[in-house]
């Protein structure tokens, strides 16, 4: 099981609701819906399904929920491998 802290992530939005995360990611042309438990960077994604994730160049944007701090919108750069995995799901 992975840890977010091991990634070079950037917080785009903090302490938002899962709805706000979904709305924010809708503006990206390349986006995918995944189910809870979907593994990215060895992290299981949590949320109200479908959970939206978006591709921005080589970066992957996705919501990350912490029990005490709500949902954050995270950007992880150089995510080519995970992006390829998402594209292969189609």
């Amino acid at each position, binding site marked *: 099981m992975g840890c977010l802290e091991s990634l070079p992530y950037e917080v785009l939005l903090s302490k938002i609701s899962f709805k706000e995360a979904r709305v924010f990611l809708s503006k990206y042309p390349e986006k995918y819906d995944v189910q809870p438990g979907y593994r990215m960077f060895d992290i299981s994604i949590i949320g*109200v399904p479908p959970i939206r994730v978006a591709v921005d160049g080589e970066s992957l944007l996705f919501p990350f929920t912490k*029990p*005490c701090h709500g949902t954050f919108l995270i950007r992880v750069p150089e995510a080519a491998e995970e992006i390829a995995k998402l594209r292969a799901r189609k």
Partner: protein
Amino acid sequence: MTSSFIPLDFHTYCISMPDESIRRVALLVMGCPKVPVQTSLVLYLASRMKKAGIRTIIAGTPSARQLIRVADPDGHYIMEMKDLDATVAALADGELTVTDSYVFVHNDAGISYAASMLSLTNRPVTAILFGEEAVQMAHEITFPCTVIVEPATHNPMQLKRKIEEAAPWDV
């Protein structure tokens, strides 16, 4: 306010498994432990489940688990505790199977966990909403689950009464 949306397969499951108390595995999912009633209600629910012979797993953050461990050092009321992230991963990987989940919710993150448990287990979920925003939070639940709501923060008695009315250990 107590409302119920019981998935159809819940009844099918109850009818088809007469030795349910032996086979049941209940998952109690704790949220952030900052609202005091959560710890005592998790201990209470775990105790009732344990007495009913149901294998009961408590999943939570390290702080939430430490509150339980300190309150019940000899394990009189609890059976098993697991890390929340590890539990989600185990459910996603099919390494853990549960028959029903009880998710303690007092914020938006709790709703995300309740929805995730429903998706990951495909089994009945009960969302137990508490804290000052409990009623507002209830309106955010758009997926099928049993909802128990009481805006309790310090005094657990009203919420305990509602859990007793639902009596999930008797299902």
